[in-house]
Every structure is written in C-alpha cells, then in structure tokens.
C-alpha cells in the first residue's frame, strides 16, 4: 500500500516503513541505542531525501528512548544526575554542531563529512567494542587468568570540579561527563543521530560507569538531544515529515517491546559483542560506498525554494 509523504514529497510503501521502524525499534530495545545511526542511512537508501530522513527519524529516536528509559527506570537503572550533566554538555555541543552543519553545507562538503564521520565513528567504536567483548568472553572461559583492576587511575582523575554520582558509585570530575556530552552533542547534530552508539561505549570505558546503568542513563540523555534536534529541524528547515515519523514510531514501539524482552535473556558481553558487529557492519557498508566508483559521478542539488 503506497502512501504519499507530504514533506518528503514522495510516495512509499506503508509496510516498508512499518518494517523499518520495527527492525530498528527491536535493535534499540535490545541494545539501548536510539537507532538513529541505522535508521538515517536506511531511509536515505529507500529514497527519502537526506534532510527529511535526518529530521524525521529524530522523532522515532524520541519514542524509542522514552520507551527504553521507562523500562530501565522501573528497574532503577537510570542515573539521573549523570544524565543531566551529560545533557548540559550535549545541548551546548549540539548548538556548535548545528552551526558547523550550515558552514559545511555552504562549502558543499556536508555529505562527505557526514559519510566520513559515520565511517570513522562506526568502525572505530564497533572495532573497540568487538575487541573488548571478545576479550571479556575469553576471560570468562579462563577464570584463572589475571582480572583487570577494578579501578584504574589515569590523568582524567586529576581534573578539578569533582562530583559524586551515588547511583553510578563514581567520584569523578564533572568536566568529564560535560566534555563527553559536548563532543557527542556536536556529532549528534552533524550526523543527525541521538549519539547513543558513541555515548554508550564512552560511558563504559571512559567514565567507568557500571554497564547496567549505562543504557538507561544514555537513553535519558538521548531523549532531550533528539527533542532538540527534531524541534530545530522542524522550526528552521521544515524537514520533519509527521506522516513518515508516525509510521516509523508505530513500528518502533512494537519492535522495542520485543527487543527489550529478548535482550533480558542475553549476557552483557554477548549484547556488547552483537552491538559491535552491527555497528561495524553499517560502518563497512558506508565505507564501501565512499570507495566504490559511483554509478554517475554527477548529482543534482535543488536550490532552496526549488520545490524538490
């Protein structure tokens, strides 16, 4: 069944959109990421204009994150204090990111920067996580092997403005989560994603938060980042397609429910290993697109007000 998307100005199969939403929702419920890093390339692949894809999937991220946070909150797995500090950094970062976006668009290299950022961060994060989770699985098989120290002291622990995060059982400098939020905020605005796929591993490896709290806390922060992105896009660029967003959201909330249940049966390192594989796969797929000669080296860009 075809439906005409009024803002994207194209007609598309309803079931395809529900299916995409369901698939991404399942994965976001499973891994605790918004799923933007997956949804944006998929939407562009099925022919949705990139600007509309980036803006509309932010709404899907909002729904998936709210749904996820509620599930984790019930189990007490959200560190709200940490989430708020991350958020403060994230909102500041996304303002810089939106500014960078417009500068790059003027030069005509926004597509390349977005593609490179995707490839770099997806393969980097995916690779690191894969190595770590394989290591964790191996250590579990050989319990006699030397265990990692519970808490390692590196230079970041010498930073000022120390803050106590009771739920995370951490006493670290507030500059750390602020800076992390800021950096991810820039990337989130540039790449049109919530940033969960960078935030989750960074919270585990950089901040040293307990894995159980990471997913809920990052989703809590992602809700507000996605609301900010969605609102700015709707207000400034009129690129949010409510019909598209609604169909994706509908599929996603159903998918997320199944994802969360399925995820409860998997162990932490298995979950991280699977997420790593998924992130790596998307990164490699995008990298090939950059290297393989395009079908036509020419492409068209409609000027503002050009109706397309």
């Amino acid at each position, binding site marked *: 069944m075809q439906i005409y998307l009024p803002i994207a100005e194209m007609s598309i199969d309803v079931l395809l959109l529900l299916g995409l939403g369901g698939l991404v929702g399942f994965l976001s419920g499973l891994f605790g990421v918004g799923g933007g890093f997956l949804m944006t390339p998929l939407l562009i692949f099925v022919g949705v204009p990139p600007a509309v894809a980036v803006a509309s999937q932010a709404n899907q991220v909002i729904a998936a994150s709210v749904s996820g946070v509620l599930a984790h909150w019930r189990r007490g797995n959200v560190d709200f204090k940490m989430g708020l500090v991350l958020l403060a950094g994230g909102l500041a970062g996304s303002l810089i990111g939106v500014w960078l976006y417009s500068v790059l668009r003027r030069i005509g290299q926004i597509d390349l920067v977005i593609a490179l950022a995707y490839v770099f961060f997806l393969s980097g994060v995916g690779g690191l996580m894969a190595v770590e989770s394989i290591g964790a699985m191996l250590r579990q098989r050989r319990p006699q092997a030397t265990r990692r120290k519970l808490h390692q002291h590196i230079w970041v622990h010498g930073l000022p403005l120390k803050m106590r995060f009771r739920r995370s059982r951490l006493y670290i400098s507030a500059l750390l989560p602020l800076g992390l939020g800021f950096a991810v905020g820039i990337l989130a605005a540039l790449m049109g994603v919530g940033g969960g796929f960078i935030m989750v591993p960074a919270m585990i490896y950089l901040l040293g938060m307990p894995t159980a709290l990471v997913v809920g806390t990052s989703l809590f922060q992602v809700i507000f980042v996605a609301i900010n992105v969605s609102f700015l896009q*709707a207000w400034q660029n009129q690129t949010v397609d409510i019909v598209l967003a609604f169909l994706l959201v509908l599929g996603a909330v159903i998918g997320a*429910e199944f994802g969360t249940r399925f995820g409860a049966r998997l162990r932490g390192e298995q979950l991280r290993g699977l997420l790593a594989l998924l992130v790596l796969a998307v990164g490699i797929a995008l990298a090939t697109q950059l290297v393989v000669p395009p079908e036509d080296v020419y492409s068209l860009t409609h000027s503002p007000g050009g109706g397309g």
Partner: protein
Amino acid sequence: MRISLLALALLAWFASVAGGRIAVAASLVADLSNHLIAITTGFTGTDVLLFGAKEGEGDVVVIVRGPTSSISVRKKSRVAGIWMNTDRVTFSNVPSFYAVASSAPLADIAPPTLLARHQIGFNQLKVQAPATVDPDRMRDFRAALIRRQQRAGLFMREAGEVSFLGNTLFRTNVYFPANVPVGVYLVEVLLLQNGNVTGAQTTPLIISKVGFGAELFDFAHQRAAIYGLIAILISLVAGWLPHILLRKA
C-alpha cells in the same frame, strides 16, 4: 486552502480561454482532460489527456514545462581513494518538468531556428550557467543535468506521440510521476505547416497538494514551531503509551 485552489482553477480556466482567443486565426483548439492534478495521500502519478482540433493540414507539437528553478550539478572525483564532490555548475531557469510530443519526427517538420525559438528538445532548453564556464565543461554538465532529470522521471526520455483521429482531431497523453514538483505548468500546443507555426495555444496546468497532505505541508511551513512541538508530543506519547497498556495488562 480550498478557496485558494478554487481561485487557481478559475485562473487556469480564464487563461485557457484567453489563450484560445490569442491563437493565430483560431486554426487550433486544444484542451486538457484535467486542469488540476491533485496530489493526495494516495498519489502515485497520473496521466493527463490533451486533445484538440486543427484546421487544414499540418503537424502538432505539444510542449509541457514545469516551473523553473536553479539546480546545481555537482561532479564527484576520486581524492585519496574517496569519491567526493570536487566541481559544481549551477544552472538557472531549469524547468522542473519537461516533456515534448509530436505527430511526426521533429527534425522532419520543424527547422532548427523554430526548435530554438520555442525551446523544443533538450538541446534547445535555455538553461543558464555563468559565462565563466568553458564550453567543454559546460557541455558535460549540461548533459549530466538532463540525464539526472531523465533518471528522476522529470524529463521525458524521448518525444511522445501525438495521434490523429481523421484529419482534424488529435490527442496525446502526458504522464506525471509521483515525484512531480508542485506549481503552475504550461502546456504549449503548436500547429506547424511547411516549417512555420500557423497556430498556437498555451494552457496552464496546476499541480497542487490537496487534502490532509496539503494541510500538513502548509501547517509545517506556516506554524513551524507548533508543528515541531506536536511532532515531538506524538513521539513522546507513542513511547509512553505501551508502558501504561502493559502495566494494566
């Protein structure tokens, strides 16, 4: 919305009546099966029938043009193993839609000067690019512009056929794909006799979004902030609802 559509349709009707009067010696009369293409939520492309009558011998050429705009053509090349945009030419005055139909091959019925004057055929489109672009580069980019527009289904690949019913009646079909841009289109019908235009008529055709989709589009543009907040609210509720339902269950 409905009032403005009505006004547009009336305008189209007046213009078509006026256009008919201007026609040289009334040797040609043509009309469309539909002066308004409504893009609704179920729109997947449509055919419009153009029909008419002519006096005496001669061939008929139909040219359909969408509203013009500026389009940038970017060219990718390989830099350090990665394909990136390295060159760009911006063309102005590019029709968003372009289709030609004729009752005989164009080269047989019209001299090049006539084709150029009425912008019949891709080579005759008066798209404008900065004068600084050298001829070779210009030719490549112009060809790419037409090729990409054809690929998108917005420029017809080859001239359509105008068929005759007896000696006076003629008809042709013009197909508008699902991604057709909205706006006021001009349908030009020419009667050619011995390489001269002896009759002409221009009829406007309006392509517009109507119904729910149109109202959403207008709302998104005129009340952008409220639209954005509603979109966010829907998402928040959609994420929250399953939990209430599940808790009760």
